[in-house]
């Protein structure tokens, strides 16, 4: 195999695929990227057995063939080569190593046989639809912070995406929860997605999809089957296994009847939370909200590092009440609020609180209070 590719194209392709490759691998071939040269294209493939990213890019192919080489090393080299360099990758039949040359630089990298490279079995992905890249990115951003990292309930280790009904309007809904907070966001149902099954996209895939969406400008192609999801971003294609489990009935968790309403300006609120949380205990990060007519007082009381409080004006006219939250959770939610105001709907200090965004009716959040 011999191909020559422009450094920028190589860097972009490797940048997209190498993120899948785990830093530590017990199976050596999984540290490698598969490079295939044919026609006037180079195809780069990386996998961790649960997820695969393939990216094709234009290249001058002198001799068709395949090779696998260490993904992170190759990426680091490409990163350090001078801009505009032409990079030649060559695998000669008499040398077990792949050579890389660019200008006066020359590298020999250990290669492993391409026949050992695990290929994700291709299967029919029944449902395919087009969705605007920015809308998909929004769904992910508004929910992924709530994805659980606890392995016991593995079905919470991803974003639950499914077709739902909002006021008789079909929507594509994303939900994530770790049992302490829940985030939900919706977008208009893309045409062709109606028959999509309810799925759970694992956290690692979510993060990679989000990264690739960064470089995608208009529509992305989404294909879904029982066990897999595929995102087509033009040159790059990501295929991931789905979490095999059923997401809990989250609807009953969202409190709809909470009657104590508080509206507070987003930016001053987020800054105040951040300020007083400075002295909250590192791990519990408990912060108390005390609401009374027209105001809310944020307090942190830490026996070791002291006490902090800040007063904010707020639109509140119900009975006085106190409620505790994890400061981190408040900040995570505040960061996703796009409108000017955060709207809290309380019931009492021990029951879940619903939070909405004054500027986005298609997203909502639920927070479990802490004892204070």
């Amino acid at each position: 195999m011999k191909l020559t590719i422009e450094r920028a194209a190589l860097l972009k392709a490797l940048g997209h695929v190498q993120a899948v490759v785990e830093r530590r691998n017990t199976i050596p071939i999984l540290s490698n990227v598969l490079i295939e040269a044919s026609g006037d294209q180079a195809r780069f493939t990386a996998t961790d057995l649960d997820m695969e990213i393939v990216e094709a890019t234009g290249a001058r192919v002198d001799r068709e063939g395949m090779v696998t080489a260490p993904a992170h090393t190759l990426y680091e080299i490409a990163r350090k080569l001078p801009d505009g360099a032409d990079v030649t990758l060559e695998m000669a039949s008499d040398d077990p190593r792949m050579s890389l040359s660019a200008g006066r630089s020359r590298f020999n990298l250990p290669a492993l046989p391409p026949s050992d490279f695990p290929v994700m079995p291709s299967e029919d992905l029944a449902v395919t639809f087009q969705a605007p890249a920015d809308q998909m990115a929004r769904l992910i951003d508004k929910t992924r912070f709530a994805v659980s990292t606890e392995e016991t309930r593995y079905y919470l280790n991803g974003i639950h995406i499914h077709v739902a009904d909002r006021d008789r309007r079909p929507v594509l809904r994303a939900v994530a929860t770790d049992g302490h907070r829940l985030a939900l966001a919706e977008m208009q149902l893309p045409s062709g997605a109606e028959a999509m099954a309810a799925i759970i996209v694992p956290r690692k895939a979510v993060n990679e999809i989000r990264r690739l969406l960064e470089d995608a400008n208009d529509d992305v192609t989404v294909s879904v089957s029982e066990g897999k999801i595929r995102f087509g971003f033009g040159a790059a294609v990501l295929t991931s296994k789905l979490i095999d489990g059923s997401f809990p009935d989250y609807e009953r968790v969202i409190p709809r009847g909470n009657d104590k309403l508080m509206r507070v300006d987003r930016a001053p609120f987020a800054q105040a939370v951040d300020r007083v949380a400075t002295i909250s205990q590192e791990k519990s990060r408990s912060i108390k909200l005390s609401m009374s007519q027209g105001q809310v007082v944020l307090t942190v009381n830490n026996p070791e590092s002291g006490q902090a409080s800040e007063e904010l004006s707020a639109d509140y006219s119900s009975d006085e009440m106190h409620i505790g939250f994890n400061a981190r959770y408040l900040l995570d939610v505040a960061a996703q609020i796009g409108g000017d105001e955060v709207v809290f709907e309380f019931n009492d200090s021990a029951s879940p609180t619903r939070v909405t965004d004054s500027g986005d009716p298609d997203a909502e959040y639920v927070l479990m209070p802490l004892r204070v």
Partner: protein
Amino acid sequence: MNEPLINYCRACHTRFNGVHEYCPACGDHALLSHPQIDQLSIAHIDCDAFFASVEKRDNPELDDKPVIIGGGQRGVVSTACYIARLYGVRSAMPMFKALELCPDAVVISPKGGRYGVVGRQIRDMMFDTTPLVEPLSIDEAFLDLTGTQRLHKCAPVLTLLKLQQHIYDEVGVTVSVGLSHNKFLAKTASELDKPNGFSIIPPRDTLDILAPMSVRAVYGVGPAFAKKLEDQGLRTLKDVRKLSDKDLAHRYGEAGLRLARLSRGEDSRKVKLERVRKSVSGETTFHRDICDLETLKSKLWDQCVRVADEMKTKGVAGHVVTLKLKTADFKSLTRRRTLNAPAQLADTLYKTACPLLEAEPKGRYYRLIGVGYSDLVAAQGDVGDLLDPNALKRAAIERASDVARAKFGKDIIQKGLSFKSQAPKKKTEP
């Protein structure tokens, strides 16, 4: 070598210089003598046959009888008094074997709480001597007496002689003291002359004293490692010293390098105060190996309650749950789970650990189960779970039953789950 020889009489604590065969003050022969003796300040104090000594102290009739502390259905010797040791009885020996060697022995089952009280009494006396006490267990500790000379107006060696006497007078048990210039040597010294011993290892004599010692005597060299060393002809520390550090590190890794240093008596560990608790855990060894999942679960529940009780007393909550199992053939397994939020309840602990237990292959026999919380924070934890609306209710029930247990005794309220472990189902061995 023309420094004057310094002597301390172990009987009357008199200090005198020069070469003497017996104490010029009281005529006793037990002398501690070395030119460098006043410079030693790291000590290891170990109670002699502690549990047995406490029993003998409380019951003078046992004084001249061989006493073995231990029992239970697993039947191993926990402590043997020095008379029983004459018959060859050792701790961790199966009870039937101990009784074969010493049929006249008085066997007493251990009284945990009683020994704890006596152990703390001794520890308090150590703390009166120096603030730097590092307890290793209920009956042994390291003491750093560096800089206490001004306070006690005498060298550490004399302070320790007085402490040894004081412990005997006040508590009625004997201790053995090792005094040297680092922890490893202090511990080694305390082993040299037991019971009621006092040994010193001064820097100048370190290499000679260590040379003939077996590698097995080194703390941290277990039977497996010792076997490996001996197979390669490394029986004593002198043998070990013949190899270079590099060689030993190459052969045995980190453990080899450590052994190389210790073979020359080098140990840079400091005497540290008791460290902050990083975890709370409980474990139990079964009377007979258990395979039945339901029985294991009820044993697990009992330990969860124990751990949760301690967590609540200390007012801490933990982020990580660890399940520990030991199989019938002594393999240890641990399984960990990180929680999304800290917890302290028995309910949460059990609900997290139980799936870990269930995930283990069926049909295996276990001899031990343990469970614990770690990564602790000062908090109550258990903030409830959106997806498990009953979690808060169960938490309230657990806290309410805690109140009742505090008032009427720990066994007043128990879950049905516990009863299984009290009457284990008869299982036929495979």
